[in-house]
C-alpha cells in the first residue's frame, strides 16, 4: 500500500464538464482515492448537457442520477467549481498548471439554503428559454428554474448596467427604483434613490432626465417616464423622506464651509453630513435653495415641495445660515481663521448678461433673474399688454410663462435661432406655446426704442446662419438684409445668459476664466487653484441644470473627504464607464402600454395662477408606467433579496475570479452542443495533448453508456497516475475527515433514562421555517418531554457555524443526544432520491464537530419540506405538526441502541468466473492495479479478430506474466464467506482448490448454461445466486441494475459483481464496460473495511422457530440446521441492507433492528397522532 504524499495538488485530476460521464468519472476517481477538481461551466451539475437527466425525465434516471450528483458534490476528495472555465493550461502531463476563470453567481453557494424568500421579493422579471418555451421568472432564481439542482444555491442573472443608471449624473439606480415601483414598493424605491442623491421632489419635477434620453424602451415605442416616476416616489412615500447615514453624527470634526445653498451646495452638504461631518452653508439670500427658490418658477416647483425637501435636509442636521454673503459679510480669510479647513463654492450664476444694444437702460427693461426672483417670492400683477422676452434658454421660457400667469396679455419670445436649437427644455417650450406664448425664431433685437424713458417698441431683425462655425460649435449668424420689423413691447425681459458673481467672494488667487467669469477647477477633483477650495455647479460650468449641479456637489464632497483624510484625490475616479447592458430590441416582447401622460391642470386655470401645472401620476398609472421598463440589466440591484436573506448569502459585489489549480491529468468532457468538428464520429477517448484527454460525447449516449464511459475513463486515468501501485487512502482517514455517519461506537454512558440528556435544536432556516412554525410554542410543548434538557433555536444548521453552535452547547449542558429539527430526515449513511446538498452539508459538519469528536447520538427530523414549507398557509397546523414530529424524534432517540460493531478487512484479490474473452479485460485491468486475479475459465480458443484471446492448456495453476492466474474450469464449485472475504472451493475430481477472494466477478450466462452440478452448487441456492437474485427483480429492462443503484445510494457492498455481456456490443464498448466494472471492483476493494450498517438486522436464533418466512422475502437470509434437526434463520450482517421486510414477517419477534425497531415505529406513530399528549411507554 503506497503512502500519500504531502502535496495533494500533484496527485489530482482536473475534470471539466457537466455531463453525467464527467460527474461519474469524478466520483469514481475520488472513490479510488484520487483528489479531483471538478469544473463545470454551468451553475449546477448536469445543466446544459444534452443528455442531462434533468431534461430527461425518466424516473429511473432521476433515481440514479440524483444520488450520483449529491455524492459527487459532497465527496471530501472532490472540489466542485461551478461557473468555472479553463482560461489556459501550462505545463506537461503530471504537472499541469490551469488558470481558471470563475463567473460570478452573486450568491454564496455554501450559505444559500434554497428557501426562496429572495425570489418572492425580487422586483425584476426576466425571460428565459426553458425546454423550447419562454418562461418569465425573477432575476434571482434556482439554476434550473423549475427543477431542483446540485448545488441548490440560487443564481442572479445580470447583464451589465442599465443605460439609465449609467446616464444619470448622480448615479441613481434607476432600473432599481423603477422595478421596486412596479411592485408597489414606494418607500423602498425612495430609499434606494436616496442612497445616491437627495432632493427627489425637486428632481422629479425639474430634472432634465438624461436617463429618459438613454432609455431602451424609447427604441421600442417611447421612453419610460422616469422623471414622473421619480416624482411619484418622492410625493407618495408613506413615511416621508428619511435619509440614511453612513457614519454617525459628529464623527468627523473638521469644519467645512459651503458657499451657496443651491442644488450643488445642498447636495455637497448632504453627502458630507452623511459621511459624518457637520458642514455649514452660507447663503446670501433670505431663502434657501439658490436657483430652486429664485430662478425656477413656482408653477414648476412649488414652494411647499422645496420647503419639504429642505426640511428633510435640515432634519439630517445640515446647518444653513441665510443672509450671509461670503466676501462681504464674512471674508474668506475670516472663515479660515475660524477653523474652516475646506470650502465648497457653489454660488451659481446669477448675474444677468446684457445684450449690449441701445435702449437697454430704458424703464421696463428688466433682467430675467430679477423678474423671476420677484415673481417667485412675491405676488405681482403685471399690467403689461406686451411682454417680450429675449433669449431661448430655460430662463426665458420661465420668465415668459411667469409673465402669462401674472396677467400679461401678450407674451412673445425672441430667439435668434431655430426651435430645434433652443437650449430650453422642449417640454417647457411646448407648454409655453399652449399657454399662448408666441415665439419668433431666427430673430434678434437690434434696438430697444422708447418714449419718455419707457420702452414701447423693439426693432428686430431676422437672421440666418453663416458658414462660419464659432466656438461652442454653433454656426455664426448674419442678419438678413431687408427683414427688419418692429414689435410692440411695454416690458422687455433680457434672458441671454448668466454669469457667476465670483469676484464678490474676494478670494485671492482664485482662478477665474476671463470670458465666462466661471471658476476654473480640475475636472476630476473639482479643486480650484487654491488647495482645499473646491467649486461646482453653475459657477463652474455656466448656466446648466439642477442634476449636473447636484452631481458636481457629490463629486466635490468626495474630493473634500479625501482632502481632509489626506487620501489621494484622483485614485479610482474618472474610470471608464461600466459595461452598459445591450439588449436585442427586435426580440423584446412588451405589453403595448403607451407612455403615461403627466396630468396637467386645465389651461384656463393654469394660466391664471402660480399653482403647480402638473399634478403627478396616479398610483395605477405609476405602477403601469414602471412595468413598461424593459429591465435591461436583468437584476436591477434593488437589494430586496439582500434585505430578506437572513443567511446573508447574497452579495452583489461578486465578480469574475481568476485562480490556479494544479493537476496531473486533465479530463475534458465537452457536451454535445459544443461539438464542432468531425471528431464527433469517435467514441471513447482521444488524446490531443499528452495528459489532456478529451472524451467526446456521442449523440445517442444513454444513461448507461455515459455512466460506463465515465467509470472507464476514470479507471484508465487512475492507472495512468498511479501505475502499479495501489494507493488508496484508508477509510479511517475518511472517517477522520468526517463523511461517515455510523453508529458503531459505544455510548459513553449507560442507556438508562436518567442518563440520557437530550438537546433539541430548532433550525430557523433563515426565516423560512421560523416564519411559519412558532418556535416558542414548540419549545414550550417540548419542554415537558422526559430526557429533554435543553431546547434552542439556531439560525442555520447546515453550515460550519451552525454545527459549532450546537457543539458549544454540548459541553455546557452535558448533552449526549441531540435532536435536530431542520431539513435532514435521517441519520444514516445513505443518499436517497429526496436528499439535498444542504442535508449533506449538515451531515458533514455534524460528523466533524459532534459525532466523531463527542460520539453524540443525533436524530434528525424534517420540519422544512415536511412541515413549514408545505403548510405555509396553515401556520397553526404546522406548529402543532412540528411539535409532533419533533417529539417523535425525541421518542426515537430515547430508544436508539447501537449496532454491535463488525469490521472485517478486505482481501485484495479477485476471482473471475467466466469463460469468454469478455472477462479478460477486466482481469487485466485489475491485475494492473496490483490485485491478485484468479480467472476461472473453460479454456479459450483463439479467435481470429479478438486480439485478447489466448490458448490456455487445461492444467491447473498456469501463470502468465500479467499476474492473472488462469484456473481451469472445475467440476463443482462452492462459494462461502462474507463480503470481502470470500472463499471459492473448486473441485477437480477428488482435489479441492481453495481460492480466497475479496471480490467475485461472475459471468452469469456462462455459469447458468452449464448443465453440470456447478450450477446448483455455485449459483442457485448458493451464495452467489442468493446475492445476485436481488439484482433485477422485475421484468423491465431497466437501465441501471438495482445493485448498482444501491451502491450509489446506500453504499451496498456485497463484493459480487456481474460480468454482463451481450453480443451486440462492439469490441470497444465491451472494453469500456469491463473497465467500468474494474472501476467498481477497485472501489470496493479500496475500502478499508467492511462493516455492518446501522440498520442491519439481528436474528436471535434462540427465538427463531425456523418457519422460513423471513428467508422467503430476503434471499440474503439463510436457513441453517441445528444438530437436533431444527432450523433457524441467519443473516450475514455485512450483507444485510436494512430494509426490515424480514422483521414484518417474523412471527416470534426474533428479528430486530437497532434503528427503526418496532418500539421506535410504534412510539413514532403514537407521537404523531392527536391522542398523544406525552410520550408513553410502549
Amino acid at each position: 500500500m503506497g503512502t500519500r504524499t504531502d502535496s495533494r495538488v500533484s496527485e489530482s485530476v482536473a475534470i471539466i464538464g457537466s455531463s453525467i460521464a464527467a460527474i461519474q468519472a469524478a466520483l469514481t476517481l475520488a472513490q479510488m482515492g484520487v483528489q479531483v477538481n471538478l469544473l463545470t461551466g454551468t451553475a449546477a451539475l448536469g445543466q446544459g448537457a444534452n443528455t442531462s437527466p434533468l431534461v430527461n425525465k425518466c424516473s429511473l434516471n432521476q433515481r440514479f442520477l440524483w444520488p450520483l450528483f449529491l455524492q459527487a458534490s459532497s465527496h471530501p476528495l472532490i472540489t466542485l467549481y461551478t461557473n468555472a472555465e479553463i482560461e489556459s493550461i501550462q505545463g506537461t502531463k503530471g504537472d499541469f498548471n490551469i488558470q481558471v476563470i470563475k463567473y460570478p453567481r452573486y450568491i454564496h453557494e455554501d450559505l444559500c439554503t434554497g428557501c426562496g424568500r429572495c425570489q418572492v421579493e425580487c422586483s425584476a422579471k426576466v425571460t428565459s428559454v426553458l425546454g423550447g418555451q419562454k418562461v418569465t421568472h425573477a432575476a434571482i432564481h434556482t439554476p434550473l428554474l423549475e427543477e431542483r439542482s446540485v448545488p441548490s444555491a440560487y443564481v442572479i442573472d445580470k447583464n451589465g448596467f442599465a443605460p439609465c443608471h449609467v446616464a444619470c449624473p448622480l448615479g441613481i439606480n434607476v432600473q432599481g427604483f423603477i422595478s421596486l415601483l412596479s411592485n408597489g414598493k414606494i418607500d423602498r424605491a425612495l430609499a434606494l434613490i436616496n442612497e445616491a442623491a437627495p432632493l427627489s421632489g425637486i428632481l422629479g419635477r425639474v430634472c432634465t432626465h438624461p436617463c429618459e434620453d438613454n432609455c431602451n424602451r424609447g427604441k421600442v415605442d417611447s421612453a419610460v417616464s422616469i422623471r414622473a416616476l421619480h416624482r411619484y416616489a418622492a410625493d407618495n412615500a408613506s413615511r416621508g423622506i428619511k435619509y440614511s447615514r453612513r457614519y454617525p453624527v459628529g464623527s468627523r470634526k473638521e469644519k467645512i464651509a459651503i458657499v451657496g445653498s443651491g442644488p450643488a451646495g445642498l447636495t455637497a452638504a448632504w453627502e458630507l453630513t452623511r459621511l459624518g461631518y457637520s458642514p455649514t452653508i452660507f447663503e446670501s439670500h433670505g431663502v434657501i435653495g439658490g436657483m430652486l427658490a429664485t430662478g425656477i418658477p413656482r408653477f414648476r416647483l412649488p414652494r411647499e415641495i422645496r420647503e419639504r425637501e429642505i426640511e428633510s435636509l435640515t432634519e439630517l442636521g445640515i446647518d444653513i445660515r441665510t443672509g450671509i454673503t461670503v466676501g462681504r459679510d464674512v471674508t474668506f480669510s475670516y472663515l479660515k481663521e475660524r477653523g474652516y479647513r475646506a470650502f465648497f463654492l457653489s454660488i451659481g450664476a446669477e448675474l444677468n448678461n446684457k445684450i449690449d444694444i441701445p435702449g437697454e437702460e430704458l424703464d421696463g427693461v428688466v433682467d430675467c433673474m430679477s423678474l423671476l426672483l420677484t415673481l417667485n417670492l412675491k405676488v405681482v400683477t403685471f399690467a403689461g399688454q406686451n411682454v417680450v422676452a429675449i433669449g431661448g434658454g430655460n430662463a426665458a421660457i420661465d420668465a415668459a410663462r411667469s409673465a402669462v400667469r401674472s396677467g400679461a396679455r401678450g407674451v412673445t419670445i425672441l430667439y435668434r435661432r431655430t426651435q430645434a436649437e433652443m437650449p430650453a427644455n422642449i417640454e417647457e417650450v411646448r407648454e409655453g406655446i399652449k399657454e399662448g406664448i408666441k415665439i419668433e425664431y431666427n430673430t434678434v433685437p437690434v434696438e430697444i426704442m422708447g418714449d419718455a424713458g419707457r420702452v414701447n417698441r423693439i426693432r428686430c431683425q431676422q437672421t440666418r446662419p453663416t458658414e462660419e462655425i464659432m466656438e461652442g460649435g454653433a454656426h455664426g449668424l448674419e442678419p438678413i438684409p431687408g427683414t427688419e420689423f418692429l414689435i410692440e413691447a411695454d416690458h422687455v425681459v433680457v434672458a441671454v445668459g448668466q454669469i457667476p458673481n465670483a469676484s464678490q467672494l474676494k478670494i485671492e488667487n482664485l482662478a477665474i476664466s476671463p470670458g465666462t467669469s466661471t471658476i476654473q477647477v480640475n475636472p476630476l477633483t473639482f479643486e480650484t487653484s487654491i488647495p482645499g477650495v473646491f467649486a461646482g455647479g453653475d459657477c463652474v460650468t455656466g448656466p446648466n441644470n439642477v442634476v449636473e449641479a447636484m452631481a458636481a456637489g457629490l463629486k466635490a464632497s468626495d474630493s473634500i473627504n479625501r482632502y481632509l483624510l489626506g487620501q489621494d484625490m484622483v485614485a479610482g475616479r474618472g474610470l471608464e464607464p461600466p459595461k452598459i447592458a445591450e439588449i436585442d430590441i427586435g426580440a423584446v416582447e412588451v405589453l403595448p402600454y403607451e407612455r403615461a401622460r403627466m396630468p396637467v391642470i386645465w389651461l384656463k386655470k393654469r394660466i391664471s395662477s402660480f399653482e403647480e401645472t402638473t399634478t403627478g401620476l396616479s398610483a395605477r398609472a405609476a405602477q403601469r408606467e414602471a412595468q413598461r421598463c424593459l429591465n435591461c440589466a436583468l437584476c436591477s440591484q434593488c437589494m430586496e433579496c439582500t434585505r430578506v436573506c437572513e443567511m446573508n448569502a447574497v452579495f452583489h459585489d461578486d465578480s469574475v475570479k481568476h485562480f490556479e489549480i494544479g493537476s496531473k491529468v486533465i479530463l475534458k468532457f465537452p457536451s454535445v452542443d459544443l461539438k464542432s468538428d468531425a471528431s464527433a464520429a469517435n467514441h471513447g477517448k482521444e488524446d490531443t495533448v499528452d495528459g489532456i484527454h478529451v472524451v467526446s460525447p456521442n449523440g445517442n449516449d444513454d444513461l448507461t453508456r455515459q455512466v460506463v464511459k465515465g467509470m472507464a475513463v476514470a479507471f484508465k486515468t487512475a492507472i495512468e497516475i498511479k501505475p502499479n501501485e495501489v494507493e488508496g487512502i484508508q477509510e479511517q482517514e475518511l472517517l477522520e475527515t468526517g463523511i461517515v455517519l455510523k453508529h458503531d461506537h459505544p455510548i459513553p454512558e449507560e442507556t438508562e433514562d436518567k442518563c440520557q440528556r437530550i438537546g433539541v435544536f430548532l433550525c430557523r432556516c433563515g426565516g423560512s421555517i421560523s416564519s411559519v412554525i412558532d418556535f416558542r410554542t414548540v419549545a414550550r410543548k417540548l419542554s415537558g418531554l422526559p430526557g429533554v434538557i435543553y431546547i434552542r433555536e439556531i439560525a442555520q444548521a447546515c453550515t460550519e457555524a451552525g454545527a459549532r453552535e450546537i457543539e458549544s452547547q454540548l459541553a455546557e449542558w452535558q448533552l449526549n443526544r441531540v435532536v435536530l429539527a431542520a431539513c435532514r430526515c435521517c441519520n444514516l449513511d445513505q443518499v436517497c432520491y429526496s436528499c439535498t446538498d444542504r442535508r449533506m452539508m449538515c451531515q458533514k459538519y455534524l460528523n466533524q464537530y459532534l459525532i466523531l469528536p463527542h460520539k453524540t447520538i443525533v436524530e434528525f427530523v424534517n420540519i422544512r419540506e415536511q412541515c413549514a414549507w408545505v403548510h405555509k398557509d396553515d401556520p397553526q397546523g404546522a406548529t402543532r405538526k412540528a411539535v409532533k414530529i419533533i417529539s417523535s424524534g425525541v421518542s426515537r432517540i430515547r430508544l436508539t441502541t447501537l449496532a454491535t460493531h463488525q469490521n472485517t478487512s478486505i482481501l485484495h484479490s479477485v476471482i473471475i468466473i467466466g469463460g469468454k474473452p469478455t472477462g479478460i479485460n477486466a482481469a487485466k485491468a485489475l491485475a494492473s492495479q496490483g490485485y491478485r486475479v484468479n480467472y476461472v475459465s473453460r479454456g479459450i480458443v483463439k479467435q481470429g479478430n479478438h486480439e485478447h484471446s489466448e490458448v490456455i492448456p487445461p492444467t491447473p495453476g498456469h501463470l502468465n506474466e500479467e499476474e492473472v492466474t488462469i484456473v481451469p474450469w472445475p467440476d463443482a464449485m462452492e462459494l462461502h464467506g462474507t463480503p470481502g472475504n470470500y472463499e471459492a472451493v473448486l473441485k477437480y475430481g477428488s482435489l479441492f482448490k481453495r481460492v480466497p477472494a475479496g471480490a467475485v466477478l461472475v459471468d452469469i450466462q456462462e455459469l447458468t448454461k452449464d448443465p453440470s452440478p456447478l450450477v446448483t452448487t455455485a449459483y442457485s441456492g448458493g451464495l452467489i445466486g442468493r446475492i445476485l437474485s436481488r439484482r433485477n427483480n422485475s421484468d423491465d429492462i431497466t437501465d441501471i441494475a438495482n445493485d448498482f443503484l444501491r451502491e450509489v445510494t446506500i453504499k451496498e457492498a456485497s463484493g459480487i459483481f456481474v460480468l454482463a455481456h451481450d453480443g451486440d456490443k462492439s469490441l470497444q464498448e465491451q472494453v469500456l464496460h469491463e473497465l467500468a466494472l474494474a472501476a467498481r471492483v477497485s472501489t470496493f476493494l479500496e475500502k478499508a473495511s467492511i462493516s455492518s450498517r446501522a440498520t442491519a438486522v439481528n436474528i436471535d436464533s434462540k427465538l427463531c422457530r425456523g418457519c422460513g418466512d423471513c428467508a422467503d422475502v430476503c434471499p440474503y437470509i439463510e436457513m441453517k440446521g441445528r444438530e437436533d434437526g431444527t432450523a433457524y434463520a441467519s443473516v450475514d450482517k455485512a450483507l444485510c441492507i436494512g430494509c426490515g421486510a424480514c422483521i414484518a414477517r417474523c412471527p416470534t419477534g426474533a428479528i430486530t433492528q437497532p434503528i427503526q425497531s418496532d418500539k421506535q415505529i410504534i412510539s413514532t406513530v403514537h407521537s404523531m397522532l392527536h391522542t398523544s399528549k406525552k410520550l408513553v411507554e410502549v
Partner: protein
Amino acid sequence: MYTELLVFACNWDGWSCIETATNLGLSYPASVKVVRVSCISRINVGLILKAFEFGAAGVMLLGCEQGKCHFGVGSEYITREYEKARRILNMLGIWEGRLILVQIPAFDGHEFVRQVTKLITEITQIPSPKYARGISPRPAQYSKVDSYL
C-alpha cells in the same frame, strides 16, 4: 369527525413523492402525518392496527410499484398485510376504506396529494351512526368504534 391521517411512507419512492409535492408548491392539510420507514414491507398488520389504536382516522401505505423496490422486495408482501389488515378492521367494525395502499411511481407529487385528498374526503363523508340510515359507503353494521376514529 376526521382528525388525522397517518401515512407510512417508504424512504425511497414514497418519500420522494411527498418531497416532490412540496417542491412543486402543492399543499396538503397539516392533519396528514407521515412516518418514514426504510421499505413499506417493514409494515405489518400489527403496526397498522397500532395506528388506528392511537387514533388515526385513516392510514395510507405509500410505497413503490411492483418491481421498483429499491431493496428488491416484491410488493406481494405488503399487499398481503394490507388485505389482512383490512379484513381485521372490517371484523372490528371499522370501515376498511380507512386503510389504503398507494403504489405510485417515484416523484409523483400530484398523485400523492390527490390520494390524500381523496382519502380525507371519503373519511369525512362517512356519516356518524346517528345519521347513518343505509347511507353508503358505510353500511349500518359498522360499529360505534368506527365513529370514534
